[in-house]
């Protein structure tokens, strides 16, 4: 256990865990756009910057991204210095210039007093804030079907060579983790389309509801040893079945499920 001081208060934390995790646990409001517990931090959005110092630094301080900075015993952290507030405000203002139509960015910027971007707004772009959450979650699944390609303003998230991603299994993790909802997909007539690739959908044998794509089911059966019966029925029907088995609760559970 390490002891660190955050905004004047001494708190306990695990040596090596990232500062942002501790800050969040304490309920301190530090914005973060690219951080997510399921994925490795990369520090793209820079919003989570905090000021750190140590007694032996003799007054010297520095700003670091808390999502990437590991807890060290004795660290003194400040999360809301005037400089940090200015940095966050500017960063959100810049994000708003890039994605003027993103509701999430609008809301976050609003909280920092930015109602409209101070900069020259990008009128054509989409709402991708280039946080890499999608590519990182895909990597966690061992697929890396999409990645960030090109440089600078031209940087986009795309499958290799801009073609149908060979390794994509249509799991939707990328679309679901995306904070600004910019990854489109469609489920229609038993087919899912994402990244321009089409997938056969597995449906519930009882109610016909979509469960997962055939490729994702195969992946989970093979790689994660999930029994294949699991993909015969949807979650709701599974619950119903369980309830039935439990006798006395039948009526009530059925009501809930419907």
């Amino acid at each position, binding site marked *: 256990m390490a002891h660190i001081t955050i905004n004047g208060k001494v708190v306990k934390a695990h040596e090596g865990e990232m500062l942002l995790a501790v800050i969040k646990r304490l309920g301190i409001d530090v914005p973060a756009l690219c951080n997510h517990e399921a994925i490795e931090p990369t520090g793209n959005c820079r919003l989570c910057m905090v000021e750190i110092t140590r007694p032996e630094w003799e007054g010297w301080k520095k700003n*670091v991204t808390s999502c990437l900075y590991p807890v060290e015993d004795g660290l003194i952290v400040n999360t809301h210095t005037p400089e940090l507030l200015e940095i966050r405000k500017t960063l959100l203002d810049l994000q708003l210039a890039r994605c003027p139509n993103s509701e999430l960015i609008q809301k976050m910027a609003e909280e920092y007093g930015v109602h409209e971007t101070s*900069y*020259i707004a990008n009128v054509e772009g989409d709402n991708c804030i*280039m946080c890499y959450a999608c590519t990182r979650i895909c990597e966690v699944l061992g697929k890396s079907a999409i990645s960030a390609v090109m440089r*600078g303003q031209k*940087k986009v998230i795309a499958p290799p060579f801009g073609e149908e991603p060979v390794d994509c299994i249509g799991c939707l993790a990328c679309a679901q983790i995306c904070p600004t909802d910019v990854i489109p997909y469609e489920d229609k007539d038993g087919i899912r389309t994402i990244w321009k690739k089409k997938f056969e959908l597995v449906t519930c044998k009882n109610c016909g509801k979509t469960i997962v794509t055939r490729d994702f089911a195969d992946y989970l059966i093979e790689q994660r040893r999930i029994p294949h019966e699991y993909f015969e029925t949807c979650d709701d029907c599974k619950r119903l079945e369980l309830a039935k088995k439990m006798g006395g609760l039948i009526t009530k559970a059925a009501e809930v499920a419907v």
Partner: protein
Amino acid sequence: MHIDTPKKLEQWRRDCRKRQDSLKKKILVCLGPGCLANGSDKILDEFKKVLKDKKAKDVSLEAVKKTGCHGFCAQGPMVVIEPGGIFYAKVKKSNVAEIIEKTLEKGEIIDKLLYSDPDNGHKYTDYKEIPFYRHQVRISLRNCGQIDPDNIEDYIARGGYAGLAKVLTDLRPKEVIETIKKSGLRGRGGGGFPTGRKWESCAQIEAPIRYVICNGDEGDPGAFMDRCIMEGDPHSVLEGMIICAYAVGSREGYIYVREEYPLAVINLQKAIETAREYGFLGEKILGSDLSFDIRISRGGGAFVCGESSALMKSVAGEVGEPRAKYIRSVQKGLHDQPTVLNNVETFATVPVIIDKGADWFVSIGTPKSTGTKAFSLAGKIRNTGLIEIPMGMTLREIIYNIGGGIPDGREFKAVQTGGPSGGCLPADKLDLPVDFDTLTKAGSMMGSGGMIIMDDRTCPVEVARYFLEFLVHESCGKCVPCREGLLQLYKYCTKITRGEATEADLALMERLSKTIVTASLCGLGQSGPNPFLSTVQYFRDEYLAHIRDRKCPGGVCRELIQYVINDKCTGCMACLSVCPVGAISGEKKKLHVIDQDKCDACGSCHDVCTFAAIDIK
């Protein structure tokens, strides 16, 4: 031949020197990038051809040597005849026979081929007396232009691998690190981090494997110091790396070379193979316990790949994107193992420090920036080329004594150092000494050694806009302040050059720059606003002239200038015929007039006028 003891190396060195001395005359033909572009390879071939056909007295075919860049690119193609350092400038293929006949056979100097000082017409025979060379001190460039990079004997004869032999026989790894620390050597790749301390941190970390990497990415457009060392003296880089490997305990090294430098790759590859053959690389180097080998890794040529963490990712075959360096790469570098990364020039300097001692190195330069630094001089300067100066020399000495000043009778306006994310310094900073800390304090930086000189017809806003555009393209695009912030700075600079910006915009740019500097993930973003910040610091009045008066004092920004014909016009019709939009009217021998509504300020008329009859307003 395998050299397996330092003693054998010394024996071989004596043999090499004997062989070199037996060549009574040497003809050094520069095949550096500048001379090559002017056809020096044809000159080399011609020398070989003529000498093959004709048996010249005292001159053998081996006497003709191709070399790497000799430095004075503005005077290329150049040929140097040794002994005597006879320097022939702007040589043509047709001069070759005459050079052989007169200079080589009869010892006569060919006057018309000598370099003559444009100010006083003085002609120099020995290049070492030419002001361009006279004020230089060459350490990292010691062999460039002097040896054939493919011939290891040339390198050996000039003291090559003596530093390596010395560390293997006389010094323990710790002592090598102490020597480098004592020499005060700081990284030549831009950051100026003390090299000895870097090596020490790496050596102290327990790990099964450590790597040594040489950064040959050289992303600054216009800079070519590292290229010339890799092309012209590859063994010096290898020797520096091997010494480092011994000091930190590494078995594996990489040289990261950008794709645009194919000759550097070829020459380094050849040098690596030769070094293996002679026992300078591989198992049991020079018979010692040291085993180390080097591989070349080719980079795609992105500017950001020169940044240390991006470079290591690129070497490992991943996308070259920087990462946060809260854990330093000396601890966790390539493949997460402790890694020393140094610049080409840094490594090339190491063997000399070992050979001549730390005290000797400290005696050159300034107390906090010891030794020398190579620069490439470019832009509005007479003597463009590759130079190396002792640290602490002033900008004025570099630009006027070595660089020969500003051509075409124009005035100096600014000097840009530090590459695209460096800064511009104005005339009243010309007496600043060039060292790491002074340049940084003045709002620029040493960088890897690009130096661009600008004359009075330069617009600082346009300069900032130009470099920002480069950085916007080269930003890896991962973090917000760099990707979006630099883009905004670029957009606002464009607005200013068009006369569309307000003073509030300028204030916004200055505020934004602060965030970009503190919040960016890597050095590119952290120094990215420099082109803007340094120009607005020193040329604020010109920014304001664009904004308030819609005028470009430098006469560059098209939307803000007018070309007007004055009464010096002789009516020669030259401008009239080059104007692409037909904006000029007039008759022969009568004053011409420019129709301002049609004119799009391309400047063609101004360039073609020989009577100074077109003013820029």
